[in-house]
C-alpha cells in the first residue's frame, strides 16, 4: 500500500514537473505627469510606454504566455500624490518596477521613497541626484554632461567654429548648467564664449541683444532656452540683422515641433540635438512611428519615443531577471542593461557603471520645416 502511495506521489510529481510553466503577468507601474505643468512630457512618455508594452505582449517577447501588465497613474507633478501612489503600488508584490515620475523635485521624492521601499524606479528626468538617492533609482534620459558634448563636438569638428555668443536663461539652474557645459567645451577645445547674454523665461524683447550681436563678431550663436522662446530669440536675431551665415545652435530643448511652428523660416538651418529623429532614424524607429500614428492619429514626438524605449528597457531587465523575477533581480538586471534596441539616440540603450543611460544623441538641423539629421 505504501509502495503504491509512493509510486502515485512520484508519478504525480513527475506529471507536475512535466507540465508547462504557468503563464506569468509582470506588473509595471507607469507613473507619469498626465496633468499639471509637466503633462506635455508625461502624456507622450505614457503613450510610448503603453504602445511598447502592447507590442511586447503581442510578439510574446517575454516568453510564451508571459506578459506585461501596465498600471497607469498620474503623478500630476505633485509630491504627495506621487509618494502615495508609489507606496500603495509597492505594497503589491506583483508590481516589479515603477516607470516615473516625470520630472523635477517630484522625481527626487519618488526616487527617495523607491529606495526606502526597495522597488526599482526609473524616472523620466535626467537629474543626477536621482542616482545619489540609492541603488534602486535610475534615470531614463541622459544628463547634460552626456548630451552637450554631442553639439559641442559638432560645433568644433563639423562646423569648424569655436568662438560663439551664448544666449541663455539665467533664472533656471538646468539651463545655466547647460550653457556652462557648452562654454566649457568650447574653452577646452581652444575656443571661447564671445559674450554671455542672460535672459529670463518671461522675457520677450530681444531687440537689444539682436542689435548687439549684429554688430559683434562671433563664429556662431548658441541659444539655450525653451523651444518657443528660442524660436522667438532666433526670429528677432534674424530681424535684427545678424549675419544669416552665422550658424545658430541649441540643445535638446529645441527638439520640439513648437520650435518649428513658432519660428517658421527664421529657424531654418538651426542645429540642435535630439533623442528622437521625427519619422524614425532606422527601420525600427520607422515602425514605431507608423504604429504610433496608427494608434494615436498623430506622429510620435520626442517624449513618446523616450517612453517607448523606457518600457523596452524594463522589459529587457524583467526578462533577464529569469523565471519568477523579483524586484531584487530586476534591479540587478537593470544595472547590466546593455544594447537594448530603442528608437532614440543611436538606437541602442545601455546603462554605464554609474547607472547613467547611454543611448547617444542625434545632431539635427531644421530643413524645409522639418528636423533632419545634420551631416
Amino acid at each position, binding site marked *: 500500500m505504501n509502495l503504491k502511495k509512493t509510486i502515485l506521489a512520484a508519478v504525480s510529481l513527475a506529471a507536475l514537473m512535466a507540465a508547462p510553466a504557468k503563464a506569468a503577468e509582470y506588473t509595471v507601474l507607469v507613473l507619469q505627469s498626465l496633468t499639471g505643468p509637466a503633462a506635455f512630457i508625461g502624456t507622450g512618455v505614457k503613450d510610448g510606454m503603453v504602445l511598447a508594452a502592447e507590442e511586447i505582449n503581442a510578439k510574446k517577447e517575454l516568453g510564451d504566455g508571459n506578459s506585461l501588465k501596465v498600471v497607469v497613474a498620474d503623478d500630476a507633478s505633485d509630491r504627495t500624490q506621487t509618494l502615495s501612489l508609489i507606496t500603495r503600488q509597492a505594497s503589491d508584490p506583483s508590481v516589479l518596477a515603477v516607470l516615473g515620475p516625470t520630472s523635477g523635485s517630484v522625481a527626487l521624492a519618488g526616487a527617495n521613497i523607491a529606495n526606502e521601499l526597495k522597488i526599482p524606479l526609473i524616472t523620466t528626468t535626467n537629474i543626477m541626484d536621482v542616482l545619489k538617492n540609492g541603488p534602486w533609482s535610475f534615470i531614463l534620459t541622459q544628463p547634460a554632461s552626456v548630451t552637450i558634448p554631442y553639439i559641442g563636438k559638432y560645433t568644433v569638428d563639423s562646423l569648424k567654429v569655436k568662438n560663439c555668443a551664448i544666449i541663455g536663461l*539665467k533664472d533656471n539652474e538646468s539651463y545655466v548648467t547647460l550653457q556652462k557645459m557648452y562654454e566649457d567645451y568650447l574653452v577646452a577645445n581652444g575656443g571661447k564664449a564671445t*559674450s554671455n547674454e542672460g535672459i529670463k523665461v*518671461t522675457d520677450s524683447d530681444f531687440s537689444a541683444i539682436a542689435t548687439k550681436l549684429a554688430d559683434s563678431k562671433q563664429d556662431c550663436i548658441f541659444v539655450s532656452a525653451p523651444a518657443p522662446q528660442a524660436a522667438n530669440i532666433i526670429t528677432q536675431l534674424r530681424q535684427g*540683422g545678424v549675419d544669416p551665415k552665422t550658424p545658430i545652435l541649441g540643445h535638446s530643448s529645441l527638439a520640439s515641433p513648437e520650435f518649428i511652428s513658432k519660428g517658421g523660416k527664421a529657424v531654418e538651418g538651426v542645429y540642435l540635438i535630439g533623442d528622437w529623429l521625427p519619422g524614425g532614424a532606422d527601420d525600427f524607429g520607422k515602425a514605431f512611428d507608423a504604429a504610433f500614428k496608427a494608434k494615436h492619429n498623430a506622429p510620435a514626438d520626442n517624449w513618446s519615443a523616450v517612453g517607448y524605449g523606457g518600457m523596452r528597457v524594463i522589459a529587457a531587465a524583467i526578462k533577464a531577471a529569469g523565471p519568477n523575477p523579483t524586484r531584487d533581480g530586476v534591479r540587478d538586471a537593470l544595472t547590466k542593461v546593455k544594447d537594448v534596441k530603442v528608437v532614440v539616440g543611436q538606437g541602442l540603450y545601455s546603462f554605464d557603471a554609474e547607472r547613467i543611460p547611454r543611448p547617444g544623441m542625434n545632431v539635427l538641423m531644421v530643413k524645409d520645416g522639418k528636423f533632419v539629421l545634420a551631416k
Partner: protein
Amino acid sequence: MIAQQLINGLVSGAVYALFALGFTLVFGVQKLLNLAHGGVFMAGAFIAYYAVVSGVPFWAAAILGTLGAGLISVLIEIVAFRPLRARGQAEFAAIVASIGVDLILVSIAQRVSDTKVLKFPFGTFPIEFYRFWGLRISLLQIMILAIVAVLLAALVFYLKKTTFGRQVRAVAINEKAAALLGVNAKAVYFQTFFISGALAGIAGVLIGLSFNSIQFLMGEPYMLRAFVVVVIGGLGSIPGAVFASLMLGVMQTLSVAYLPNGVSEMIIFALLFVVLLFWPNGLFGGAGLSAGVGRR
C-alpha cells in the same frame, strides 16, 4: 550701434508708457494700486490672438483686444473695487482684491492656452524694414511709435480739453466736492477704468505682435516695470509716466548692449531707490498734479 539701440529703447519705452499710463491714471483718480493691470494687459493680447486665429483681420482683432481689455477692467471695477469703496475700504483691501483678480485672469489664460506660448500667425503684420543712416527700423516699430503718440495725444486732449476730463480731474482732486457740483463719480470711475484697461489691452496686442510672444504670465514683468515707471515719474503723473517709461526703455536697452550680463535690473532698481530717496514724490510729482490727474 548706439543710435540703433536708442531706437530699440524708445520703442520698448513707448509700449511701457501705454501700459503705465493706464496704471497711473487709475491711481491718480482713485488712489488705488490696481495690481490686476498686468492681467488685463495679457487679456487684451489673448483676445486679439484668438480673434486673429479665428479669421478676424488684425486691425479688427486689435480693436477687439483693446475694447475687450477695457470691458474687463470695467468689470473689475464693478465686481471688486466698487463694493469695497462703498464700505470705505478702497485702498488696502482693493490691493488684495486686485491681486486676486489678477490670479483669476492668469489662471483662466493658463487653462485656455494650455500653458503654451502663443504667437500671432506668420503674415499677421508685414515684416518690412527701412534703412537710413545705417539704421534699421521696421514698419511695426514705426506703427508702434505712431500709435503710442496718437493715443497719448488723445488721452491728454481728453483729460484737459473735454468735459469728461474736467470731471475726472474734479473727482481726482476731491470726490465729495465734485459730487456736490453734480459730477457722477461712478461714471468717472467707470470711464477711467475703461480707458486704463483699453490702454493696457492695446499695449498687450502691440507687445504680442512685436515680440512674437503671448503667454499667461506676460503681464508680470510689465507690472514690475510699471511700478518703477510710476514711482520714478510720480504716482498719478501722466508726463512723468511717459518720461520714465522712455527713460526705462532706453536705459534697459543700453545696459543690455554695453554692460555686463545681469546688470540691467540692478541699475533700474538702484535708480528707483535714488529717486525715492531724493524725490519721494517722483521726478514729476508736482507736474503730475498740475496735469490734473493726481490727487492732492
